[in-house]
């Protein structure tokens, strides 16, 4: 099935995008605000979606709002704060059953679109500011989220690698901002951030599902026509920086399984013509259960439970992460580097390349079977100024050659190594002697 992304401009840097797919029983509408990642403003901006989620002028009470969602057949409303390249993305989305399943002819597509516009554009304010109660509660929640990163050791280790690798660069800024900035949030600063977002953000609305996108579009167009817009955020990608010296850091916590995370910079831009060869190279390296990393570091050497590589084409980086036994760190690091060198020298079989491409093609085609996956896919496309359907992307991989993969792999350079491991009792002279 060929997808067509329907994109229209419904305001000053406000876009409505839709994908129609009649096999689904639901629709998903997501409103995304792109702002520049800023050390100073990240926390104030991050809190905004959480406050907006709690209610609006017309429905100021959270229980009442949740009851409305229940009445809409269990409509699912949520918010998200994420990072894409050098941008902070603030999103609110709602997923509802399509109109055709409503037992009393309710117009769920129109109702849910209207609800989103009310929550986003007609917030509950007191004397022109977010209420003290809402701000205090959500501020505490934001602080809790920032602190709780440590609960998931795998994610925590990846976050630490990110901070090490991109120190003093934009990419080191956390999506929720810093703890000190979160603690300093006030009603005034949060409300100001909200106003800035409405004025300056690049706004991308995505509608995916079987329902009537035109109805939704008209409602959003009408709502956003009243908003004043200026100094619109223009997405620019920082220049590639070659790593100078490999940075290393080890951290000690009370944990059973150690985490090894390695960051590599790629000499590439997301719009490069050979970006697909780089994607394939990384997948061959560590993207499938028959990748070089899985087969060697896990299966042959039994060093770990997981060892994989992912490619971020916008940040131009490759991340390898692995859960290992403390004593195996040096062995694992060596093997991870050796496997990359093997690809860089072309010392792999054509059959491995064929299998990697087959696996990637399979995964791209499967994207179209889930609303959330389609949404993420197209948001990535829109961010990069593209509109390829997943099936089209799959086609582009089919003719990638071994030479292209080798060339692309040689653009991958080790930048940083981060190791999270268990605390040791104080020892004299040992390399893991206590802190």
């Amino acid at each position, binding site marked *: *099935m060929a997808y067509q992304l329907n994109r229209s401009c419904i305001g000053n840097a406000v876009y409505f995008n839709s994908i129609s*797919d*009649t*096999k*689904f*029983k*639901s629709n998903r509408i997501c409103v995304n605000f792109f702002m520049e990642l800023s050390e100073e403003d990240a926390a104030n901006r991050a809190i905004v979606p*959480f406050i907006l989620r709690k209610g609006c002028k017309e429905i100021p009470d*959270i*229980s009442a709002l*949740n*009851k409305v*969602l*229940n*009445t*809409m*057949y*269990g409509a699912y409303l949520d918010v998200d704060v994420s990072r894409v390249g050098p941008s902070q993305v603030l999103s609110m989305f709602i*997923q*509802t*059953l399509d109109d055709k*399943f409503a037992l009393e002819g309710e117009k769920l597509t129109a109702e849910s679109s209207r609800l989103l516009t009310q929550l986003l554009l007609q917030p509950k304010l007191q004397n022109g500011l977010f209420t003290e*109660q809402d701000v205090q*509660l959500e501020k*505490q*929640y934001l602080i*809790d989220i920032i*602190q*709780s990163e*440590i*609960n*998931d050791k795998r994610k925590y280790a990846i976050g630490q690698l990110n901070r090490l690798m991109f120190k003093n660069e934009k990419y080191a800024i956390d999506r929720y901002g810093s703890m000190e900035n979160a603690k300093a949030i006030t009603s005034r600063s949060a409300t100001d951030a909200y106003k800035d977002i409405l004025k300056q953000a690049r706004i991308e609305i995505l509608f995916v599902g079987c329902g009537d996108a035109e109805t939704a579009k008209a409602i959003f167009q009408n709502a956003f026509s009243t908003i004043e817009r200026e100094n619109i955020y223009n997405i620019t990608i920082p220049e590639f920086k070659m790593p100078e010296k490999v940075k290393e850091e080890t951290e000690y*916590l*009370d*944990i*059973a*399984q150690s985490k090894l995370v390695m960051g590599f910079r790629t000499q590439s831009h997301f719009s490069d013509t050979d970006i697909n060869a780089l994607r394939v190279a990384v997948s061959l390296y560590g993207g*499938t*259960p*028959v990748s070089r990393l899985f087969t060697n570091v*896990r*299966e042959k050497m*039994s*060093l*770990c*439970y997981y060892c994989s590589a992912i490619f971020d084409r916008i940040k131009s980086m490759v991340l390898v992460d692995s*859960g290992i*036994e403390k004593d195996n760190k040096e062995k694992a690091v060596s093997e991870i580097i050796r496997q990359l060198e093997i690809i860089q020298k072309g010392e792999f079989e054509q059959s491995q390349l064929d*299998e990697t491409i*087959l*696996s990637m*093609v*399979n*995964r791209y*085609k*499967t994207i*179209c*079977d*889930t*609303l959330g996956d389609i949404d993420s896919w197209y948001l990535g496309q829109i961010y990069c100024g593209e509109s390829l359907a997943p099936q089209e992307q799959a086609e582009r991989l089919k003719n990638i050659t071994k030479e292209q993969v080798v060339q692309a792999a040689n653009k991958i350079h080790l930048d940083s190594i981060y190791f999270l491991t268990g605390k040791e009792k104080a020892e004299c002279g040992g390399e893991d002697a206590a802190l």
Partner: protein
Amino acid sequence: MEKKIIANKRLGEEYIQLKHPSGLTILMYPMKGYSSAYALFATNYGSIDISFKTGEETEYTRVPAGIAHYLEHKLFENEDCDAFEKYAKTGASANAFTSFDKTAYLFSCSGNFKESLHILLDFVQDPYFTKETVEKEQGIIGQEIRMYDDNPGWRSLFNMLENVFHNHPVKTDIAGTVESISKIDADLLYRCYNAFYNLHNMVLCVAGNFNPDEVLQVADEVLKPSKPVKLEVEQIQEPDDIVKPRITQKLSVSMPIFAMGYKLQPEPPETLVLGQVLDAIILEAVVGETSPLYKKMYEEGLINSNFSSEVFAGRGYMVSIIEGESKDPDAVCKAIQSEISRVKQEGIEQQTFENIRRSFYGRYIKGFNDVEEIATSMVSAYFYGYSIFDFVETVASVTLEQVNGRLRQKYDNEKAVLSIIEPAEK
């Protein structure tokens, strides 16, 4: 071949259930317009099945904890290569999982379906365990166990289950412990395999974009007919009461995480769906996001958005679980227990019930959007003897009297366990 169509008028959907001559039951749910197919080949054997006897044996054999999971890992390996290498040639994305009451081997693909299905049916029927291959897995599974030991949500849940249940094996970690898996050898693996991986004890479920005729062709080619094995899993005696009401553990977390469980009487298969639907409605009414208690605790800063509830049910166990994070989990527990008492006394109101029922109706229907969800739910449905449409139909027909009745009879604050993971001192 016995074949039946299981249909639902409300959704306008149907699936096929048939018994293949080999002894295996096959469920097929073609979905128009989808690109992928999802297939699971599963056995009605999980981490709770640690004591069993087969054929004419008189004594039960008890096996070490974690063996079902160990078996799942080892089955991927053949004498000449492993299943992932075979799937690499068809491009399918493969995996497996072991849960409390079943083990499933699966793949998802958007092409080469027949070839991938061939691989699936083939390798699961072809066990190969040697001393060397079994020992090699110790390291990998050891790592997996240690990874979960660091997971506060997982630990919070299992600490709770350990104190809810005196004897039932559901309280033991699915992967076992590093000590228990050290007792596993090739002979034990073969014994468990031969007992539980009999086609009469298994099911094949396929959903999405595929041709049912191809499924039957591959089944005819690959399935080895098997005689039913007389298999009896020991019914563990489990008293109604709990072990103790509170348990804590320290891990490096930023704030306390908790899991609270209400021990309920297990439901037999015939009433399992009804029980689960009623419990889900009760939980939603008492602690769900539209409940007065949720609002009060949220506004007092006692809980945050990481607060949820679920019904945890299977063969011989049923627990209503409430999880979240809080600076004062004891206060949360006390508030919940008070609310349970209050709602038992006053009853859930009609309007609240209708509002919740409507949201569940929508949520159950939305489940039918997803290939993986449909395929996976067919597995449990088959093993427990119900149809995947039963949840939608049950929620459409339950009454407020049933909900209030269950709340009054089954929910007892004396049978609640609170498990807390506290931050370790730095």
